[in-house]
């Protein structure tokens, strides 16, 4: 049954979001949703506890105004579910996220599979409120819940020759309509990569939650990368494989258009996308008359990450 199982909202927002939820189930679920609506209240109440995550605040969080839960969960680029920003919210409910494992391998002496339970219970979860800047020129402020990627990497005996970390998204056409398209918009599975020092940087997290609850499917459930100083597409969603490698991985967007999307893809107002400017951005949530704001170097994280790119020509390594 295509019922929506969004995380349940915090008490302050319960009424409006429940209305929103029910409305969406009606629209997408059709007749079967009517049955849900009858029993829906109970289902939601039961889910509430199961979906809550205990996270501690982090000093790395920004105190800027956070985007609403609705904005964050209805305006997504997740091409596995379609190219429209509304497609993920519409179709991601089909995705099975339990059971879920990440295969960790490559140049590592103790390769193994990491279950999602391990990430949810074996680490100290932190809330990280980060800016997210999309390469398309819009941005949000999002309260993720996650673990530092470094703390996972530290559990592995990585070989000295490993210079990069490669990530892979699930490929499951039966649950991902975008992967069933006759003309695929991107080569699947989606692949991303980081340099080892970027991967181990304290700002880099594996996110498992949003707004204090488990990650909604349209945002990359059950586990995704978040690298806040890079354009959003670097923050790969629904990860099923992490490999330590020697060569720079060929990331999906880089493969698609090497001139437009570099391996680094650091947020940089001084290096335009070949087809549009990156000098300013529109912060989502301000309505029709929202003023543009200046895009900051490394998305405002220059102090923390600038040193990673010292002596690099950022117009060349864009």
């Amino acid at each position, binding site marked *: 049954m295509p019922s929506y199982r969004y995380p349940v909202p915090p008490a302050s927002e319960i009424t409006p979001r429940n209305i929103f939820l029910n409305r969406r189930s009606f629209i997408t679920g059709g007749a079967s949703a009517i049955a849900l609506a009858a029993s829906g209240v109970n289902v939601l109440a039961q889910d509430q506890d199961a979906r809550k995550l205990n996270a501690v605040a982090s000093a790395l969080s920004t105190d800027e105004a956070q985007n609403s839960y609705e904005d964050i969960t209805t305006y997504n680029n997740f091409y596995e579910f379609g*190219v429209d920003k*509304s497609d993920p919210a519409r179709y991601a409910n089909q995705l099975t996220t339990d059971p879920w494992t990440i295969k960790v391998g490559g140049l590592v002496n103790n390769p193994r599979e990491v279950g999602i339970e391990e990430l949810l219970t074996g680490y100290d979860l932190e809330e990280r409120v980060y800016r997210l800047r999309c390469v398309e020129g*819009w941005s949000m402020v999002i309260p993720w819940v996650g673990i530092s990627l470094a703390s996972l990497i530290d559990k592995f005996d990585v070989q000295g020759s490993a210079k990069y970390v490669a990530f892979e998204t699930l490929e499951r056409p039966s649950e991902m309509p975008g992967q069933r398209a006759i*003309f695929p918009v991107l080569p699947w599975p989606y692949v991303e990569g980081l340099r080892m020092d970027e991967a181990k940087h304290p700002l880099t997290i594996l996110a498992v939650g949003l707004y204090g609850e488990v990650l909604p499917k349209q945002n990359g459930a059950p586990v995704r990368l978040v690298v806040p100083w890079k354009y959003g597409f670097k923050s790969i969603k629904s990860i099923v494989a992490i490999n330590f490698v020697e060569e720079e991985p060929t990331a999906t967007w880089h493969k698609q258009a090497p001139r437009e999307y570099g391996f680094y893809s650091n947020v940089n107002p001084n290096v335009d996308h070949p*087809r*549009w*400017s990156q000098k300013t951005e529109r912060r989502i949530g301000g*309505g029709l008359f929202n003023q543009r704001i200046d895009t900051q170097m490394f998305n405002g994280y220059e102090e923390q990450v600038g040193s990673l790119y010292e002596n690099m020509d950022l117009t060349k390594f864009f």
Partner: protein
Amino acid sequence: MTQSRLWTALPEWALYPLFLAPAVYLFAAAFMNALGADPLKALENQLGEWALRLLILGLAVTPLMRLARINLVKYRRAIGLSAFIYVSLHLLVYVWLDQQQNWSAIWQDIVKRPYITIGMTAFLMLAPLAITSNRLSIRKLGAQGWRRLHRLVYVAAILGAVHYLLIVKAWPLEPIVYFGLIVFLLALRLVPARRSPGSRKRDPANASLGASR
């Protein structure tokens, strides 16, 4: 000529409220913050898409007439002017809400961003067509000259579709379909007209053009 009266039953003016209803809805929804998380882009993009749809409909009039005997020539001016209204609103939203009247950024866009350069070129080509879409202009330009001028719409439509292709990331289906439709409709003009016994020698699309304006 044999053709259903159905196609011409509606008066021309009745098409304006029909065609402009989406614009009214879009602006109303955008002002009421009911177009999703990013109302500006939704408004801007939807106006652009309606412009393209109407341009395509306009380009379909002649082939429909010549190859399918469906005569919509009477409505061609309403279709064309509506398309131009959408392009103008699209440009207005870009200048006013997207770039927020930052004229230097707009100028940079026009000279540096091919998709804007191309969109702007298409707009500048459509403007004289909109201005001359009246009887007086046809008389002044002469039917020949008027028709020659209005062939600019072929170029403008192609540019509009290329503009769309240049905006998107990767190769989503929609802009490719629009582009393909336009190329198809232009190619149909190379197909010789169907003649029924007793039809006049002149191409019916051209023959009725002057009368409809």
